[in-house]
């Protein structure tokens, strides 16, 4: 990295640097430091153009799902739901609400880390435009991560408020479920971003991901019923599913879901690892793709 430092050039060059060289080095400092934030600014400006849709789904979906599952489905399921055989059960609404929260976070992540990435690389190559300015490829990825994190946090926070309203959060630590859900969103979203970044063309791959990855993930991640109720050979789907880890983690915070501490730690580690791997891969792919 030392070759990147502005001072290097000054000492390497014979004599004093030319004025235009000095000017370039000076002008490059701010973008080097804050480039990711400038990209995030751009994303927020774009998000503003679909603010209404964002608000409608952000407020509408918790009401619909919590009401539908809480007042509707839950009234059919009288017996408390136990996470594991033998464990103490909780009302169905309390059981399902953290899962819905995590699922909402992953839905937002799926939206933001799929088509908008393809758009930026290919359909309306704004990433190429950014890269022609002092912004570096890695900073483009970072800026997107910053902006989407903010959106997922906000969506999850709204969802959480509705959970409180519906009386679905017995634990005082429940607000931590917002962070768990956001982490789940980023874990899945970053991996998705890395995959979409490798696509030269979208001939339906993104739609396939939605249909054959996101939808089954929702069904087999202990969302609507405990993972332990699945046949044993389907349970590994849950173990590799960021939604399952985020859901279980949210449950721990929302109602003190009884699981061993090591498992809680595993959830955090798996989610952080997925988010980190996806992020790093996305940065590398961006550098390679934009620097061709």
């Amino acid at each position, binding site marked *: 990295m030392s*070759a*990147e430092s*502005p001072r*290097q*050039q000054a000492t390497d*060059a014979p004599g004093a*640097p*030319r004025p*235009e*060289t000095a*000017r*370039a*080095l000076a*002008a*490059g*400092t*701010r*973008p*080097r430091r*804050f*480039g990711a934030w*400038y*990209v995030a*600014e*751009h994303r927020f*400006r*774009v998000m503003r*153009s679909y603010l209404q849709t964002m608000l409608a789904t952000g407020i509408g979906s918790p009401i619909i799902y919590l009401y539908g599952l809480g007042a509707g489905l839950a009234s059919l399921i009288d017996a408390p739901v136990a996470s594991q055989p033998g464990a103490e059960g909780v009302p169905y609404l309390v059981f399902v609400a953290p899962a819905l929260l995590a699922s909402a976070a992953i839905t937002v992540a799926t939206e933001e880390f799929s088509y908008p990435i393809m758009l930026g690389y290919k359909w*309306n*190559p*704004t990433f*190429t*435009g*950014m*890269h*022609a*300015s*002092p*912004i*570096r490829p890695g900073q483009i990825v970072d800026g997107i991560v910053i902006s989407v994190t903010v959106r997922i946090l906000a969506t999850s926070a709204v969802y959480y408020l509705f959970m409180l309203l519906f009386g679905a959060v017995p634990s005082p630590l429940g607000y931590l479920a917002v962070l768990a859900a956001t982490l789940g969103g980023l874990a899945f979203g970053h991996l998705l971003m890395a995959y979409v970044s490798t696509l030269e063309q979208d001939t339906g791959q993104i739609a396939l991901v939605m249909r054959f990855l996101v939808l089954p993930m929702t069904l087999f991640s202990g969302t609507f019923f405990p993972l332990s109720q699945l046949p044993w050979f389907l349970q590994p789907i849950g173990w590799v599913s960021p939604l399952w880890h985020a859901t279980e983690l949210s449950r721990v915070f929302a109602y003190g879901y009884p699981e061993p501490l090591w498992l809680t730690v595993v959830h955090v580690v798996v989610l952080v690892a997925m988010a980190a791997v996806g992020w790093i891969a996305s940065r590398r792919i961006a550098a390679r793709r*934009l*620097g*061709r």
Partner: protein
Amino acid sequence: MPAPVITARDLRKQYEDVAAVDGISFEVSPGESFGLLGPNGAGKSTTMRMVGAVSTRTSGDLEILGLDPNAHGPDIRSQLGVVPQADNLDTELRVRENLLVYGRYFGLPRRTIAERADELLAFAQLEEKSKAKVDALSGGMKRRLTIARALINDPRILLLDEPTTGLDPQARHILWDRLFRLKEQGTTLVLTTHYMDEAEQLCDRLIVVDHGRIMAEGTPAELIRAHSSREVLEVRFGADRNAEVAKRLEGVGDRIEVLPDRILVYSANGEAELVRITEAGLHPITSLVRRSSLEDVFLRLTGRSLIE
């Protein structure tokens, strides 16, 4: 002689088995207007992307404003304005917003950007379109907006990749006029084109590029003097007869070039050659005497037309 703002030495870019740029060397002085003229696939865009410090070179030396793009990409790019071959304006944002957002990438204060955005919208004759959607703009307007965007950071060097390709003649002239003004203000321009009239209009000096190599270098006048005659006589005998007639034109002019639709006779005096041809009993369907252009230089150097 001030130090060059761009120095390229034996610059190469290899894409798998394609040598897109195959050992190009040139220098650009501050304030100069420098052109890369060549047909599609010559390696112009690839060269521009390396000079723009976005594409990594395979080998050779490259220095922009005294800095190596491999180590100083962001610093170099802070001093460049880039008009890429394919517009990449942000269609999710409005016209003025495109400028505001882009200025931020350079870390400029919002106030400065807002002021410059208004000046540049005026410069690009887009004041009325300030709130319009990008998709609602015509091709020429999009190009002008892209140029305005490229100027938001008050660049030392403006890189223009085929600035007028695909525009109608009127839109091209408006654009040329804007570029002239920048040139007069002392902005260094580097542009690629496959239009010889554009190269003649805008470039102080240019290189003719083909297959990733430099075929010739000089001012438009020098190139014409070195590689073509003063005048060109164009005669047409009909597509099926041109080749046959050409055989009978041996010895006419300095040199003859047979194209599918016409014959070009290179000579210092086109009218005199036409008289000789008619005296020989040959009567072209149409004839035209014109000055030599860069098109003729290109034809001479490569045996092909610029636009095929």
